[in-house]
């Protein structure tokens, strides 16, 4: 498993833990109205699990297992690296935008969308028959 996949999968695991932890707090609050801050993390719960966990895990595994180019190469990996950086920054800007201000939320969405687009552009050529 290449280094970029290792980083993204491990980060995805950490987001899974963060998202599940906050989900457990929200569920507990539904039961006993405690802890009082639980619902403040609702957006973070969604963001961590949809983009931090599910999306990032899928992209990290795709980078690993998609067919490689001739010579066992993954091509110019800079767009893929940038994609993961943008996706992770985007998640945090969206999560923290209630404290950073509305423009941070927009910036976060731009980073997430840009990161995914970069990855799509990078991976497009690797979606091919083996050996082609």
């Amino acid at each position: 498993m290449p280094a970029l996949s290792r980083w993204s999968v491990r980060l995805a695991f950490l987001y899974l833990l963060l998202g599940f932890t906050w989900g457990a707090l929200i569920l507990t609050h539904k039961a006993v109205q405690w802890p009082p801050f639980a619902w403040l993390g609702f957006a973070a719960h969604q963001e961590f699990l949809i983009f931090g966990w599910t999306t990032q895990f899928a992209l990290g595994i795709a980078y690993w297992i998609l067919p490689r180019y001739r010579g066992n190469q993954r091509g110019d990996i800079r767009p893929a690296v940038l994609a993961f950086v943008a996706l992770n920054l985007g998640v945090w800007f969206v999560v923290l935008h209630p404290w950073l201000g509305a423009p941070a939320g927009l910036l976060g969405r731009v980073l997430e969308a840009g990161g995914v687009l970069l990855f799509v552009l990078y991976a497009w050529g690797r979606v091919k028959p083996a050996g082609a």
Partner: protein
Amino acid sequence: MPTIVRWYVRTSLVYLVAALGFWLAQAAGWGSPGFGPAALHLFFVGWVTQLIFGMAIWMLPTLSREHPRGYEAVNWAVYGLLNLGLLLRVVAEPRVGTPPAGLWATLLILSAGCQWLAGLGFVLNAWGRVRGPRRQGG
């Protein structure tokens, strides 16, 4: 495909059908609105996350010769906790606040704990398998 992975994947497919069945019933006017959040989690936890867990247990690099998929007992415990937690949620969440309120609240907290432990167990068991190729020789 190992037995444990078949259980994860088949169960995730059942949840996919259940979630879509609920949304179909809701669209037809038969669904209970109190069941909405539980249905959403049947999809995202029961289907999406459980399928990812199963595929990860199957596909990630092996941990060791003795424990290729990590600790098998942990994989089974994660499976049990995730599904018990999800089913407890389905039963308790729409009823929370109705008598006997203490019972539903307790089951909902148990559901939260089970799912959280499942997530933790999965990450701890899979973490060591996220690695580069083994070096030959020594």
